[in-house]
Each structure stands twice: as structure tokens, then as C-alpha cells.
């Protein structure tokens, strides 16, 4: 055997070479910026100059004393939890419908997936038009149906604006969750369902006592991604309300953008974004657990 031939057969060398570019990319352009994001939050860096001074906990002290930040933190939690509750209900229900066969199902499926396929920013601008203070088609329809007597300023009033944000987030994520739950349903062994039918379990009993417990891991996956997509999303709030009226509907990403990029205070922007970490850590731990369980189950 020639030495060249041995090199071409050494799996660990080939494997290393083929993996290196991806690792380099991830380490240099995700790992390093990630560390930098945390370092910046302890600095007084601004966008204008390249100066970089240690600021200790000053940024954190500043934002924790800032009612706008505390409001943004609360809004992030409210929007994330609110939309994900809606997503779970809508997705489990939609999956029950879409597992059956019916006329026009292909078209229905196409429409169902539209909200997930459309770019967030374009969906948000469409919803801005739908919630328009003068031309809102929702208001017209509610009024025409006799359900509304006054007027709803969807994006002009804090409570309604948050509700609008929750609706849009749930709207854009439930199709994705539905498809995941459907994938889960199709993997439930048919014998289990049949055994339940033989034992006389009706639709609801089958749903709540047989299928939903089996679906739990899959629903969890859908919710975890939903949490990441909602808690860290900038586009919907930025375009729908811009954080207004009077900074009442900011979420962490929009506030970080306003302070860090528009306001050029990189240190404070970074500190605000760091508060996204708890959301992400919870998600990461839950996912690792699920993955481990799937590994054990596969054996």
C-alpha cells in the first residue's frame, strides 16, 4: 500500500478536514459573537467609536431601574406564553382535522402553511394594514355583525396592541406546530389506537387519555421552537407598533435594537439582549432531555 493511499483511507483525517470549515464558521461567527455579546453588556462601547471601556454592572443597574425595560421584559413573557398557549390549542385541534381525509385537503394544507412560509416582516406589514386605525377590516366586520359598538384602536392602545401581537405570533407559528403534531400522530402505533377503540373509548377519551400523552414529546418540541421564535422575534413588534404607543409594547429584541443600534449604546443594547438567555437556556435543557429520552427509547 502506498502512503498516499493510506491518507485517502484515514477516516479521522478525512472527517476532520470535511468538518473543519463548518466548525470554523460556527466558532468564529456564532461562538465568538456570543461571548462578545456578553462582554459588551459589561462595557460602555458605543457604535460611533471603537473605544471599549469596562463599565462593570452599570448597564445592568441602568436597565433594571428603567420602567420601559421592566415592561419589555414582562411583555416578552406575556407574548411568549400567551401565543404558545394559543398555538398548542390550535395545533392539536388542527392536527385532528388534518389527519382525516376530506375534499379539498391539499388546498387547505397549502393555505394552512402560508403563515409559516411568508417572511415575518411581510406578514407583519399585512397585519399592520389589517389593524389600521381607520380602515381595519376587523372593526368593519365586527360592526357589521353587530358585535362592536365603539371603535377598537388595535395598535394605538397598549392592551389591544399586545393582544394584536399575540394573535400575529400565534398565527405565524401554529401551522408549523400543526405539522409537527401531525408527524407525531402518524408515528403512534395503529394497534394502540385500535385497542382503545375495541375497549370502547370514544373520540374524546381516545384523544385525552391515549393520544395526547403519547404526543407529549412532540408537542413539547413544537412549543420549544415556538418559544424561541416568539421570545427572540424582532420583526412583528418592530413593524406592528414600533414599541409604541409611548414605549408600552416593547419586547426585549425591539428595545435592544432601539437602545443598541438606533441609540448607538451598544453596551446597554447588549445587556438587554442578554435577558433573552434564560428563555433560551430553558429551551436548550428541555431539548437535551427530550433527545436523551429519544435515544433511550430507540434502543
Amino acid at each position, binding site marked *: 500500500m502506498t502512503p498516499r493511499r493510506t491518507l485517502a483511507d484515514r477516516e479521522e483525517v478525512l472527517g476532520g478536514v470535511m*468538518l473543519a470549515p463548518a466548525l470554523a464558521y*460556527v466558532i468564529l461567527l456564532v461562538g465568538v459573537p456570543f461571548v462578545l455579546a456578553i462582554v459588551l453588556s459589561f462595557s460602555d462601547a458605543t457604535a460611533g467609536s471603537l473605544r471599549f471601556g469596562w463599565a462593570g454592572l452599570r448597564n445592568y443597574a441602568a436597565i433594571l431601574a428603567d420602567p420601559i425595560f421592566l415592561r419589555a421584559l414582562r411583555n416578552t413573557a406575556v407574548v411568549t406564553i400567551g401565543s404558545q398557549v394559543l398555538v398548542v390549542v390550535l395545533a392539536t385541534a388542527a392536527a385532528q382535522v388534518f389527519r382525516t381525509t376530506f375534499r379539498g385537503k391539499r388546498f387547505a394544507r397549502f*393555505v394552512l402553511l402560508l403563515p409559516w412560509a411568508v*417572511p415575518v416582516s411581510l406578514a407583519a406589514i399585512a397585519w399592520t394594514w389589517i389593524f389600521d386605525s381607520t380602515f381595519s377590516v376587523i372593526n368593519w366586520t365586527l360592526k357589521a355583525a353587530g358585535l362592536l359598538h365603539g371603535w377598537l384602536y388595535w395598535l394605538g392602545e397598549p392592551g389591544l396592541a399586545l393582544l394584536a401581537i399575540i394573535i400575529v405570533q400565534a398565527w405565524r407559528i401554529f401551522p408549523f406546530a400543526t405539522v*409537527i403534531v401531525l408527524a407525531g400522530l402518524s408515528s403512534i402505533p395503529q394497534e394502540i389506537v385500535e385497542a382503545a377503540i375495541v375497549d370502547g373509548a370514544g373520540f374524546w377519551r381516545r384523544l385525552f387519555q391515549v393520544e395526547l400523552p403519547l404526543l407529549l414529546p412532540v408537542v413539547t418540541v413544537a412549543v420549544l421552537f415556538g418559544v424561541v421564535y416568539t421570545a427572540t422575534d424582532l*420583526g412583528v413588534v418592530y413593524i406592528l407598533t414600533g414599541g409604541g404607543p409611548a414605549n408600552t409594547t416593547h419586547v426585549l429584541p425591539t428595545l435592544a435594537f432601539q437602545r443598541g443600534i438606533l441609540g448607538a449604546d451598544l453596551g446597554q443594547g447588549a445587556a438587554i439582549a442578554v435577558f433573552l438567555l434564560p428563555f*433560551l437556556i430553558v429551551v*436548550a435543557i428541555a431539548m437535551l432531555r*427530550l433527545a436523551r429520552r*429519544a435515544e433511550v427509547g430507540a434502543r
Partner: protein
Amino acid sequence: MKRVALYAAALGFVVFAGFPFYWMLVTTFKQNRDLYVGASDLSHIPWIFNDPPTLEHVKLLFGQTDFPRWVLNTLLVVAAVVVITVAVAVPAGYSLARLAGRWGERMGMGIFFTYLIPPTLLFVPFSRLVSLLGLQNSLASLILIYPTMTIPFCTWLVMGFLRSVPWEIEEQAMIDGYSRLAVILKVAPRLIVPGILTVVVFSFTLVMQEFVYALTFISSVEKMTVSLGVPIALVRGDVYHWGALMAAALFISIPLAIVYNLFIDRFIQGFTMGAVKG
């Protein structure tokens, strides 16, 4: 009775999911005097065309705005990001699935987890990094940064895809005298084609959808991508050209949705990470 309930529920979901798109469609082709009637006027039904449809807004969008330019910019970024992603993620996925042995799985999961680190956590340091590199306000900044989102997920996709491809074909080639390297260069590419296609489509859709980095790095209108330009630069001051805005949203959404429909099952396999056994 049960069928009725089923169709009613299906209709409900279709209406909720599809109504904003219907609204885009109607707005795109409505005349202004049909469009801008206050919603408190109950005698004017906004859901239908009260006046004949018009192409006025579509002409405005393509003739008098930078929309065509944004489409070109987006396609340029898409092409570059797809090339980078395929060149980096496909070999990495192959390496993890076929060459790395036991730690391949762990490593793959580690790489996948970086996909969970969101742009909104990284845009502050990136804004600094991009200006240090002198790339601010350029498409090159997007071409450099977007692969940080596509590579982790696509490496994971390719790795998962290769699991479903039987090892025997490559094994046979080695028995026939191919070196390990020759197998990778001559035999494996044919086997991975569907996986590569998924990578291309995923990268394409992700670039079309990205908003945060584009908003952070790009400031001049002629450098914008579609997802940034439409909601940010089509709005002039406080004037919203709703017809043109909705036309742009519609023309971008529909092709994306068609592509999504074809590839959804493959993406889902990546997302569920073995929690679903297919």
C-alpha cells in the same frame, strides 16, 4: 353530522391562516377610492371589489419603486449563501454521519444547538464586527453572516438524511477497490442529491425571510433585500401605499409557499430531532 363538524373546523383554520393573504390579494387589485373608505362606513363592504380591479398598484410597485432592485439583491444574496452553505454544511454532515464514529451524534447536536442562538442576541456584537471589517451597508455583510444560520441547521439535516441512506452502496464501492476519499468524491455525491436539494431550499427560504440582520447592517435603500425594503422603505414618511405594499407581500409569499409545501416534510424531520420516528 360528524362530516359537517369536520368541514366547519377545516374551514375555520383555512380562514384564520389564509385571511391575511386574501386581504393582500384584494388590496393589491383595488382602486384607491374603493380601498380608502373608512371602516365605520357599514354600507361599503371592504371584502369585495366594489369597483373594477386595477393594475395601478402593481405598475407603481414595479415601475416607480426600488422593488425590482430589492428582488435582484435578494437573489444575489440567496445564490451566494446557498453556495457557501452547500460547500460547508454538506461535507460536515457527511463527516458527522459517516466518518466521526460515536461522537458524531453529540457533535452534530452541538452544532445544531447554535441554530437556537437567535439573531436578536447577536446583532449587537455583529454590528461592531461588521463595521470593523468595513462591511457596513453592503450585501457582503449579509452574505458573510447568513450562513451562521443556515450551516448549523443544514449540517444537521444532511447528517439525519444520510442515516436513511444505506451504507452498503459505499461499502461495496470500497470492496471494489475505491479508496475512502474516492468514495466521498465519486459515489457519495449521487447519494446525497436529495439532501443537497433540501439544503438549497432551506437556505433560500431563510434568506428570503431574514429581517433582523438586514435591518441592522443595511441603511441605504438601493442595498436592501425584499424582506427589509418592503416594510421599511416602501413606507414614505407616514404615507403607506397599501396597494403596492400588499402587492409586494403577495408576490413574494406565493412562490415561497409553493416551495415550502414541497419540502415541509424534510424540514420537519430536522426539527423533531428523533422525537418522532418516521
